């Protein structure tokens, strides 16, 4: 880099003036887009399709059982793969005997691992491919593995103790951490984004009041209903993989590298996908190389191999949200002005790193002059974590936002007023009013637990933060207009259940003056223009701008055909309601289909590349939540009555599916707060509840009134003004529920999940105090 002395000439830009911010407080903003980019949608844009409530286009396939997910695909001669997994948490593998499995009629291929060290119960050891799932399961049970078992540790706090068995020797630690390592503990790590401001000791010394508490959040498994899995099929040196993945491009890259073949020889397809929540961003899974193994078995057997994990495996090796032990110290003046935020956390991502939880503490209340975030990763003999919906932020917000409530209690301030006083986001200020009104904040107990009777109701709130992530280059889209007037859009990214494909069709329909159902989207295929992995809430905002550019280009081409027919210039035309017309005199029009019929070729094809991100109204995404609960103080049972989530995602492309994602995040958050807990047996190091009955997730009977409110904000640094929404609404939920329980009962529970035993113990302690 330093050898290149000549500075790069600045890329040419085009300047647009946009009406940005929230409609209640608009702001004029000058943005500098890349040359060739079009004016972004803003508060003044007259949008006909975008922002509407469009049922998802693949809905009819899904509700009639016709949508083919990876798990549903089969082909003639296909074999079924089954992995054999380590049954012990720490060992050296002495011997893997597959001879009995190989002899079983119907078994066509066998794989064994070259790795010798076992670090968690659930690690890949061997695999088989057979003519039916039943025979594959039989064969897997016939594989005999001899282990030389080693000491292990599965508990976060035990792993931190001196003399605890170490998961890794110092030279084996993955990703060579840049922080000090002591036993199983790596850290402190001060995150780059918002990790440190001012002087924390000074900030605490200046405070009139301080609070300090330690909080614990257990491991939550993603539990997508379609388990991880692939079908691998070779034709010569061409490999096709149908994958249940959040990133077809990552599967392609990962498998090309693992198998030593060219990426161009690998095709990855994900037409419909049964949920991921962050666990399906890799080429296989965080704790299993099932894709690679399936490809090898397929090669060995000379037949397609389908390898779908079962529910037990899904819990063990496909990732989870790290457990975290977090201490938050806050300092404030008597009037509530924060002087210091100190967040110190020890998280365990099992055998992996990346268990930090300081995002909210480092980025909420950003006007606080003194802030320090110190994160530690603690290795345990457990399956590796994977990103889960705003990784680390739900845990971190549980600690910070519980502490803010404790500070409010100590200062005798309304928790909402305390947050307002320290708020650094103009968007969240607006959201406070919207959310407080929707929940009826004035109904809350002025004194916690003051309601008479054994069933006590309470209202609480909490904030969450997230960021505008978007890929600014390397993303493409193709739009085709056929002579019969039909329109298709092609984009490689996968629809993981967010409604991405429908949103892309809406963007095209908006640009071409059509209805959404006139556009057929094709997604989830590495043969289409390159997409992104669906992580960081970045899919729509990375892809929609490229789709809009391609649609705009196709529109220009069609206008050039329509213009002479209307006796006008192409630049004077507009399109709406299925017609192309002269903007100044709409009566001079021609139908979209009639114009397309005049095309000289069979198809207009327009391919566009994503242009760079540019100035945004805000770099962060604001969100706040309010919750109402009822606690039975005799049984400790919590019933969540209502949750209101107010979120910013730029301009929502499809308001209907945007709300659905927000509702879904609230539900997953409530489920985590009240029940979810991966339990490892400390005596044998294996998971006690690897299923969906003892690993309890929220069901119909637990359902509350979920209110999703999108606070539209322009702009988000791209021509559609879209930002993401999949992750932000799960960030505040854990704390909002805990704060509502406090308001109901006066009991402050620092440890999740909020099961009746803990709630009762804290209610009794609060009574005694």
């Amino acid at each position, binding site marked *: 880099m330093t050898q290149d002395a000549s500075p790069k000439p600045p890329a040419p830009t085009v300047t647009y003036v946009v009406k940005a911010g929230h409609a209640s407080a608009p702001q004029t903003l000058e943005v500098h887009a890349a040359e060739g980019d079009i004016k972004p949608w803003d508060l003044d844009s007259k949008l006909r399709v975008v922002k509407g409530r469009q*049922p*998802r286009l*693949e*809905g*009819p*396939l*899904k*509700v*009639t*059982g*016709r*949508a*083919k*997910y990876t*798990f*549903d695909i*089969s082909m003639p001669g296909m074999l079924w793969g089954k992995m054999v997994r380590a049954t012990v948490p720490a060992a050296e593998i002495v011997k893997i005997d597959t001879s009995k499995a190989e002899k079983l009629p119907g078994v066509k291929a066998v794989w064994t691992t070259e790795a010798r060290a076992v670090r968690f119960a659930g690690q890949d050891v061997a695999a088989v491919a057979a003519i*039916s*799932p*039943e025979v594959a399961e*039989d064969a897997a*049970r016939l594989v005999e593995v001899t282990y030389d078992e080693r000491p292990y540790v599965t508990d976060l706090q035990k792993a931190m103790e001196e003399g605890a068995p170490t998961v890794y020797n110092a030279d084996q630690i993955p990703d060579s951490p840049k922080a000090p390592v002591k036993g199983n503990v790596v850290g402190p790590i001060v995150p780059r984004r918002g990790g440190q401001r001012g002087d924390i000791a000074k900030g605490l010394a200046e405070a009139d009041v301080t609070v300090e508490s330690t909080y614990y959040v257990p491991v939550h498994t993603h*539990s*997508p*209903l*379609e*388990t991880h899995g692939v079908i691998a099929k070779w034709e010569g040196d061409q490999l096709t993989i149908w994958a249940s993945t959040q990133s077809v491009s990552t599967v392609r890259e990962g498998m090309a590298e693992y198998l030593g073949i060219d990426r161009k020889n690998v095709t990855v397809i994900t037409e*419909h*996908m*049964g*949920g991921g*929540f962050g666990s399906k961003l890799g080429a296989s899974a965080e704790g299993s190389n099932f894709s690679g193994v399936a490809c090898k078995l397929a090669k060995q057997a000379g037949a397609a191999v389908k390898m779908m994990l*079962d*529910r037990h495996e899904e819990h063990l090796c496909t990732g989870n949200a790290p457990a975290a032990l977090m201490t938050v110290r806050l300092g404030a003046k008597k009037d509530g002005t924060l002087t210091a935020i100190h967040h110190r956390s020890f998280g365990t991502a099992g055998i992996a790193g990346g268990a930090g939880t300081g995002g909210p503490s480092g980025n909420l209340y950003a006007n606080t002059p003194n802030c320090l975030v110190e994160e530690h990763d603690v290795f345990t003999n457990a399956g590796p974590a994977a990103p889960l919906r705003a990784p680390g932020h739900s845990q971190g917000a549980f600690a910070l936002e519980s502490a803010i409530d404790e500070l409010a209690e100590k200062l005798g301030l309304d928790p909402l007023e305390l947050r307002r006083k320290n708020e650094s986001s103009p968007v969240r200020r607006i959201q406070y009013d919207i959310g407080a009104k929707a929940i009826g904040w004035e109904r809350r107990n002025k004194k916690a637990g003051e309601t008479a009777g054994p069933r006590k109701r309470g209202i609480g709130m909490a904030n969450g933060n997230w960021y505008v992530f978007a890929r600014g280059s390397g993303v493409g889209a193709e739009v085709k207009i056929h002579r019969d007037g039909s329109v298709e859009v092609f984009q490689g990214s996968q629809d*993981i*259940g*967010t*409604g991405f494909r429908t949103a892309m069709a809406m963007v095209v329909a908006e640009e071409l003056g059509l209805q959404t159902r006139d556009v057929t989207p094709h997604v989830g295929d590495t043969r289409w223009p390159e997409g992104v992995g669906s992580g960081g809430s970045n899919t729509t905002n990375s892809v929609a701008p490229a789709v809009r550019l391609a649609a705009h280009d196709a529109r220009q081409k069609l206008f050039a055909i329509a213009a002479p027919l209307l006796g006008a210039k192409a630049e004077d035309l507009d399109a709406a309601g299925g017609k192309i017309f002269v903007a100044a005199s709409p009566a001079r029009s021609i139908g979209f289909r009639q114009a397309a019929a005049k095309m000289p070729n069979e198809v207009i094809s327009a391919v566009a590349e994503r242009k760079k991100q540019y100035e945004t109204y805000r770099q962060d995404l604001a969100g706040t939540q309010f919750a109402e609960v009822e606690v039975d103080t005799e049984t400790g049972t919590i019933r969540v009555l209502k949750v209101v989530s107010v979120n910013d995602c730029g301009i929502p492309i499809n308001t*209907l*599916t945007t*709300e*659905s*994602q927000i*509702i*879904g*995040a*609230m*539900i*997953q958050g409530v489920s985590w707060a009240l029940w979810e807990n991966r339990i490892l047996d400390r005596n044998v190091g294996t998971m006690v509840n690897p*299923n*969906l*009955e003892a690993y309890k*997730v*929220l*069901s*119909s*009977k637990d*359902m509350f*009134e*979920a209110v999703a409110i999108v606070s539209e904000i322009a702009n988000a640094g791209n021509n559609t003004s879209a930002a993401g929404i999949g992750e932000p609404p799960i960030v505040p939920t854990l704390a909002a529920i805990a704060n509502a329980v406090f308001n109901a009962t006066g009991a402050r529970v620092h440890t999740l999940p909020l099961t009746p035993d803990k709630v009762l113990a804290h209610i009794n302690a609060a009574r005694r105090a």
Partner: protein
Amino acid sequence: MAKPPDDDSPASGVSRRTFLKTAGVGAAATSLIGAAPGASGPAVLGPDAVPLALKINGAARTVTVEPRVTLLRALRNHLDLTGAKEICDRGACGGCTVMLDGKPIASCLMLAADAVGHEITTVEGLGTPDKMSPVQAAFVEADALQCGFCTPGFVVASTALLRQNPNPTLEQVKDGLAGNLCRCGTYSRVFEAVLKAAKATPVAGRKA
């Protein structure tokens, strides 16, 4: 575990769970069906694949499977009816729900052999993408699905619920769908869809 025989129980009275419990791995290849009172003993099938005559969505289908194959896997892996999903594989999630003689059951907990002689209705039998049932159409309209993997189970359970109770309250809908899990978090949209479908269809001559 085995229930006393009645009209609704599988022909053999042997659930998959008791069956698997009593049969070893290598031996888990026989099933008892067609036990007729007074006969010399139950017919023993297997361990190899046997032809089974099933009635699915009103059509006669023959499937040749090992007797240990569940109804769910027979539908999915042998009849290409993949609407019912294998999610938990132990009756905890409702993703594999089909109707057996009009009542919703977990098809992962029943052997295909035990479904002989019963009317099986899968989500595919309720409607097509071009001609959706009222429940299916209401699901699409209310966005009562995200990834959609749990959706066929919810659609079948909701249809069975409305056939039994054409005008449910919200609480009754929650009760009726208590056996179905959704991870994307669509419950409130599902309730909305079911209540909307109930309203949209006149009670007399309703076909949910």
